[in-house]
């Protein structure tokens, strides 16, 4: 069986960054496996601006952003295969993939980086009430039809969910001549970035209804009407609050979920993000299998995905050189009060210059302290005036703070000031 040092599954922003960084760190024998017909992943269809503010200090479109990384991949002569879907992986890191040129290929890898991105939650996952006719479509699919293939999937549109893709699509569909009637959000706050609410809804007078969701979709062959109802604190519909919209399309932007079903077959420990649990090297509980980007936890900004990809690439290089020592005696990181999840979920080694923790709050909060505690002792705390679930928080603990972790538990939680 052919052997390769590092296989990277997924050639999007995380995978390309990981490959480039691994190469720069001395791994020569890399293979990127991309299931689509281009590198770049979902950025290919994100023709709007706003990418690269952190990475390049300028505002780029998705294709512009990704092309800078494709260029580096080419310049560094990192091999990649397009239209190549991974069919299976094993615990001992045999990767099986398929394409039309090579057929089915089995490779033995020293390390694997998962950079498989995420998928969109659909109508079935939320038991969307009513008809299951045509015209119920996720925002990303409508975006692909529009930006890649040149077709409008809807002309009178109600959008459910105020996630960023939904907001971006509200603007995009409007610019292409569709009528976006409203955006409905079940939570009492929006799940999109503030700049997107301003630029995609407010600028086009598209109303945003909070605490409202779809109580019924009506339609025989294609969507004919969507009924929105107010929900109470328990997310139950309140009778008598129905608003009826005649439309041909219900666009769903109701969440993204890490796409890692290949990990199900190898007993990988999973976290509440539905991605893998990882340690401070972004390594899963399966030796030598790393995860980064949206397949680990869904990011709101691609620049952070790139950064996490680089981190995974660097760590995989260390692993291949035998420089990561797993203690089997790790510290467990848990999300305490008010925190939805924390990455990493485990720490193997406290001997880092610094370690960044990424997390999201469960609901919007003002004027809080984010407290890291080990054994009831405060390791570090950070004051934040505002934290909202739609913005991933990144906090860095330095060497000194890390040295205060004395037990096998580290908890991140919110405290009122």
């Amino acid at each position, binding site marked *: 069986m052919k052997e390769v040092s590092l296989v990277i599954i997924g050639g999007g922003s995380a995978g390309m960054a990981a490959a480039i960084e691994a190469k720069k760190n001395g791994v020569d024998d890399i293979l990127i496996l991309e299931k689509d017909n281009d590198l770049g992943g979902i950025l290919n269809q994100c023709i709007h601006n706003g990418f690269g503010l952190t990475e390049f200090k300028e505002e780029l479109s998705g294709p512009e952003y990704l092309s800078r990384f494709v260029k580096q991949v080419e310049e560094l002569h990192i091999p990649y295969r397009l239209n190549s*879907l991974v069919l299976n992986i094993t615990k001992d890191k045999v990767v099986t993939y*398929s394409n*039309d040129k090579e057929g089915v290929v089995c490779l033995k890898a020293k390390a694997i980086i998962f950079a498989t991105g995420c*998928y969109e939650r*659909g109508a079935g996952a939320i*038991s969307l009430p009513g008809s299951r006719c045509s015209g119920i479509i996720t925002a990303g*699919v409508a975006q692909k039809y529009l930006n890649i293939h040149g077709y409008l999937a809807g002309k009178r549109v109600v959008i459910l969910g105020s996630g960023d893709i939904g907001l971006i699509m509200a603007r995009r569909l409007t610019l292409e001549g569709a009528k976006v009637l409203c955006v409905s959000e079940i939570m009492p706050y929006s799940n999109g970035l503030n700049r997107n609410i301003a630029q995609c809804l407010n600028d086009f007078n598209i109303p945003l209804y909070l605490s409202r969701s779809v109580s019924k979709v009506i339609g025989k*062959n294609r969507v004919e009407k969507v009924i929105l109802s107010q929900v109470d604190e328990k997310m139950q519909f309140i009778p008598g609050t129905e608003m009826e919209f005649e439309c041909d399309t219900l666009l769903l932007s109701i969440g993204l979920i890490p796409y890692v079903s290949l990990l199900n077959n190898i007993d990988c420990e999973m976290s509440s993000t539905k991605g893998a649990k990882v340690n401070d090297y972004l390594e899963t509980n399966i030796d030598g299998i790393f995860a980064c980007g949206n397949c680990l936890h869904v990011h709101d900004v691609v620049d952070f995905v790139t950064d996490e990809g680089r981190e995974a690439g660097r760590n995989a290089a260390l692993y291949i050189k035998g420089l990561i020592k797993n203690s089997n005696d790790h510290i467990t990181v848990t999300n305490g009060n008010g925190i939805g999840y924390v990455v990493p979920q485990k720490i193997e080694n406290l001997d880092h210059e610094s370690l960044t923790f990424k997390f999201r709050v469960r609901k919007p909060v003002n004027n809080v302290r984010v407290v890291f505690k080990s054994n009831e002792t405060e390791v570090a705390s950070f004051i934040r005036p505002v934290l909202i679930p739609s913005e991933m928080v990144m906090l860095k603990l330095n060497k000194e703070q890390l040295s205060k972790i004395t037990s096998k538990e580290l908890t991140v939680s919110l405290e009122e000031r």
Partner: protein
Amino acid sequence: MCMYDFIIIGAGVVGAFIARKLSRYETNVLLIEKENDVGNVTSNANSAIIHSGYDPVPGTLKAKLNVLGNKMYDQVCSDLDVKMEKIGSLTVATSEEQMKMFDELLIRSKVNGVEVRLVNQDELRKMEPNISPNALGALFAPSAGIIDPFNLVIHCVENAVDNGVTLKLNEEVSSIEEKDGVFFVKTNKNTYQGKIVINAAGLGSEKVARMIEDVDWNLIPRKGEYFVLDHYKKGFVNHTIFPLPSAKGKGVLVSPTSSGDYIVGPSSEPVEDASDFSTDLFTLNNVKAQALDLVPNIPFVHQIRVFSGIRPTTTRHDFIIESSDKYKNFINVAGIESPGFVSSPAIAEYVFDNIISKLVSLKEKANYNPKVRPYVCLNDLSSEERNFYINKNKDYGTMICSCEKVSLGEIKDLFTRSVPPRSIKGVKRRVRAGYGKCQGGFCSPKVALILAKKLNCSPLDINYDNIGSNVLLEEVKK
């Protein structure tokens, strides 16, 4: 106007098996379906269980044909290249009172001629580690199975068409008149003449029956809502798990499906409108609660879909398989509710032996072939075997659906068949592209474009399901 010996109305599982049965003989058969695909209504949305037949009331047609049908399935699935697995069913008691009901069920099983045995709590727990701690014991019926319901009907009609049956899709029968022993069957597109008409119109069977004469039964459409969970891992449950049956039906089951997913449901409520396939949260929550009583930790985080199916129950509460009172050559095959799916091959035999053979005498074809051309299912193959096919046709190497791992070659092969898909759902039902975790998020645009190419039309004309269910509405100004 062409004259047919037989006109079958409805290409669901019942019409499909009757068509296939008739395709053995020197006779010309027309199969009319109002939908854009075969098996698209009740046959498309049910529990997909090959019931053992221990519980229908002895002496009924349901009891007789269920048991006979079950025995036919090994051969049927081998001929038609359909996935089926006899995993067995467990009907579980959760109270001492329910345990007593097994006595009655054991007697029924014996009369119906179905092999069952009681399993005690320990054995039950070994068979199903995730069963409720309240489960005290179960009735195990090893002959119960799970099947791919979509391809059963599709391959059955394909085989019938391969043997000479004419299929017309998207034609809904609007009236039937009899004149001098010939039926004039009028649809939205044509009028066909037939000597014998078989009404297998499922939810439309009462309407079709009444086109000819008054009948003494009424259809009571009964809706069932279901959850589908992704095949995240094997063995969460290993058998089809039922509660004890009640007046409302077999109750909410929890079962693996033939594709490795898990199915939970159905509810069972009479509905006015037999064309309303909507789901609602109240009903689904009820289904969920009942399922959790049997299997407490069902991982609903892996829920990928909800759906509803409507069963054509009737006021007779048994299958109605008989000639009309007025016209011996007009045969009603109606009220084929649960256990209709499993019974269908036996229903076709019954219709033939007890009715058709008394009306006409038919000669067997010399060149009848009971088998469909085998399908390539790459997921069932080793890497070496896959490469064998990829070497012959590189499309088998190009993967279209990443969740269900479906190749371009498998999709293209469908268009070489006699019942090719005409919609995104048609592709999905045949090869499972779009049936996985992302529900077509990644592959549906690719499938739409492949369809447009194969059907030689614009992507704007591609339907999700029936005609009028267009996916795309307008081309963008370039």
